[in-house]
């Protein structure tokens, strides 16, 4: 089984995200960058499948120089090799353009299975996995919390609203991860040492054979007009009553007569 994992570097979920002076981007300097949590699940799942079935795990990422840290983290967890799409022409890509870059990069690799996150916790686009599968013309199964590789097929449990659906697709296929799939391992110290020597290839937009006008800021179809902070809530109103019963009565009064929610 040759498995490709798509990994993205994103701000740590604890990060304070601030709007930059241009009003349409975020301040990148003070942020702690980490592997997207859903991609950790993807790397872990790929490693487990390789451990059971043999084969290889290749991690692919589109991003700035810094994104190599995330590829190295995946290599330290145990992935075999990395591919970094790094090019100023790719900068500022939206989800669709990112998927074009990733699909072009993956096309040059041998693969039976692609695993990626259901969403990046940066822009929360929920989009790249499906688009990569479309561009590669392979089936996709999203929101997977259990995957089994069968003979030439993959069987996935998808968590949807109101239940779980078990879906099968012939390989090659792509699936996206959901929490519950596994508990990602940490990179061990020997793993980190080994990762430094693992192959990491870098490719440009031209090397991928893509039209520069279709990717990067130039290729964006979703144009950010403005970033702003979410609307502020009014200051919290604390209920201070003598007894739990009186507290409850006051809450229900507020919700019934003022907010008209009950």
């Amino acid at each position, binding site marked *: 089984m040759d498995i490709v994992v798509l990994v993205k570097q994103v701000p740590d979920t604890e990060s304070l*995200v601030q709007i930059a002076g241009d009003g349409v981007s975020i301040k990148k300097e003070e942020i702690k960058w980490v592997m997207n949590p859903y991609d950790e699940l993807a790397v872990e799942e790929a490693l487990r499948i390789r451990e059971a079935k043999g084969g290889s795990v290749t991690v692919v990422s589109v991003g700035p120089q810094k994104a190599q840290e995330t590829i190295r983290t995946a290599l330290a967890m145990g992935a075999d090799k990395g591919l970094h799409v790094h090019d100023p022409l790719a900068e500022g890509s939206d989800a669709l353009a990112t998927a074009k870059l990733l699909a072009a990069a993956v096309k040059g690799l041998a693969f039976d299975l692609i695993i990626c996150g259901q969403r990046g*916790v940066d822009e929360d686009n929920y989009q790249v996995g499906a688009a990569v599968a479309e561009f590669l013309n392979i089936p996709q199964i999203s929101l997977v919390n259990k995957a089994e590789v069968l003979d030439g097929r993959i069987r996935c449990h998808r968590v949807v609203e109101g239940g779980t659906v078990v879906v099968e697709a012939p390989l090659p296929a792509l699936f996206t991860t959901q929490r519950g799939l596994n508990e990602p391992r940490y990179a061990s110290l020997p793993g980190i040492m080994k990762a430094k020597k693992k192959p990491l290839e870098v490719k440009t937009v031209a090397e991928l054979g893509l039209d520069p006008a279709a990717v990067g800021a130039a290729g964006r179809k979703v144009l950010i007009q403005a970033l702003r902070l979410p609307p502020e809530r009014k200051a919290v109103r604390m209920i201070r009553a003598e007894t739990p019963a009186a507290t409850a009565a006051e809450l229900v009064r507020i919700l019934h007569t003022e907010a008209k929610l009950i």
Partner: protein
Amino acid sequence: MANGVVAITEQRDGAFRKVSYEVVSEGRRIADALSCNLTAVVVGSGVEALAGEIQAFGADAVLVLDDPGLADYRTDAYANGVAAALAPHAPAVVVIGATAQGKDLAARLAARWDAGLAMDCTAVAVQGGAITCTRPMFGGKIFADVTIKGAPQVIALRPNVMPIQRVARSAVVETPPVQLGSVKTTVVEKQMDTGGKVELTEAEVIVSGGRGTGGNFGPLEELAAALGGAVGASRSAVDEGWRKHSDQVGQTGRVVSPALYIACGISGAIQHLAGMSTSKVIVAINKDAEAPIFAKADVGIVGDIFQVVPEISAAVRKIKS
């Protein structure tokens, strides 16, 4: 020339999900602002009867894709069927619900159309023919106002946010032959929750519990039942094995937007807030007056959930009877 608005609805077992009324209502508002027609798309097997129901929300035309191959959602079958049916329409705008199914379908279709997609939008404004969508990013820490270049503009709407509006029309119902193309995925099994529970992302009221419940969700279940709502959980409660992963609200769980969110014994970590900050009214109950959740709540109660929550249930039942 791209023209018209298309609203893709979602049904399960022959009944519309609530988000369908929201997308058709919002589709109507967009179509009015653009002075064009609204076509609602109904997809499934044995769903012809649904065409009548959706007219009442303002569709000028209803396109029914009825085929046994569309009985269960499969990305390839749905994407192929919808793309083929919409090809002659060349819509300017496609709206869809940002549900598990809608997000998956929207992303696949947008790639096929080489179209821009604004995912999980909480507001749509049309001015002078230009559409601006608002979407939370970074777990709701930042809101982005975006426009989409080209056609169709694909807009996925966060469930439970857009108002539902009845605008009676008598729509033209079309049932074109369904072209499924090559379908590779199969649904081999379905394990759906039974017992008529309200689904988390559709619920008007969510009572959510965290580590402070100590694993006893009984009083929260009771309050949710009294309010006709659903029960959610923090990641800690899920990690403890007290609740299913699908109940988790937050950055690595469900994103919900109920009218009322009651957080019980939840500290209010940033990753939890990411999943519920667009709720209309937030109530927090926590015994620690310093808990960060109070900074994000509309109404706060410092107290023990095991003392307060049962009293709230009793008070709710009293007012409802």
